[in-house]
């Protein structure tokens, strides 16, 4: 039980560091740590498939893509432009209002039931695969088209424009 609260504290701590770090490279490294704590959350809930997918896709692919882009974009020339303190203050107030609203609404709900894993096979690959390829076959195929179009779009956007007079 205490494991959850410790990992939850680490998640919040690292995600605060993500948005406050001055150097974007440090930000990305903190984001890696945040996603690692999320992976531990998934393991604690016995969602083993999602833990592996989160580990490989997010930490392995997406964050490497971020780092790679950051290496392409040379940020050494100028440090990051700063927002005025008033804007920062307003941003924190806005996010805090959202947090307070949701938590207050939750408090009005009263005590909730504990999360109990009734079926130990729930998050395993076998079970999820059966559901994915029976009930959700069409969305699965559509998502492959989505990935294809995203790939084409990324290549189209990022390649240097030739002379189009």
């Amino acid at each position, binding site marked *: 039980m205490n*494991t*959850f609260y410790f990992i*939850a504290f680490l998640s*919040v701590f690292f995600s*605060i560091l*993500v*948005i406050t770090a001055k150097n*974007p490279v440090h*930000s*990305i490294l903190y*984001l890696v740590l*945040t*996603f690692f704590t*999320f992976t531990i*959350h998934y393991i*604690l*809930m*016995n969602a083993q498939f*999602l833990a592996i*997918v*989160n580990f490989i896709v*997010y930490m392995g*692919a*997406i964050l490497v*893509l*971020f780092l790679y*882009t*950051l290496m392409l*974009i040379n940020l050494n020339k100028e440090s*990051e*432009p700063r927002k005025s303190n008033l804007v*920062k203050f307003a*941003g*924190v107030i806005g*996010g805090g209002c*959202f*947090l307070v609203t949701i*938590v207050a609404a939750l408090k009005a709900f009263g*005590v*909730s*039931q*504990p*999360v*109990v894993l009734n079926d130990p096979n*729930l*998050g395993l690959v076998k*079970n*999820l695969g059966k559901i994915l390829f029976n*009930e*959700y076959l069409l*969305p699965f195929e559509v*998502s492959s088209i*989505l*990935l294809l179009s*995203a790939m084409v*779009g*990324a*290549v189209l*956007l990022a390649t*240097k424009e030739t002379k189009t007079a």
Partner: protein
Amino acid sequence: METLTQNIQAIPLNHYIILCVIIFSIGVIGVLIRRNAIVIFMSIELMLNAVNLLLTAFSVYRGDATGQVFVFFIIALAAAEVAVGLAIIVMIYRNTNSIDINVLNRLKW
């Protein structure tokens, strides 16, 4: 693994919701207070992940695997979004030599 999953048995659903809301609002604050386009993108990833964790918690709570399938689709969507978004950022950097989002206010006209 057995002892690991025993740990979860006593955690109320509310605590999961509160954790995810805290991380989501950290993402919102990050979008609002930073001007670096890449950091804003990372804050969006943070928000997506908070939602993923909450969907998984609900899925375990209800004993219904649909939520976890949905999280799988969201992860696929996030990968597509990051690819296109980073391509746009690279293109903006090539045209303006900066990834400060305030440069983009010319899109207004």
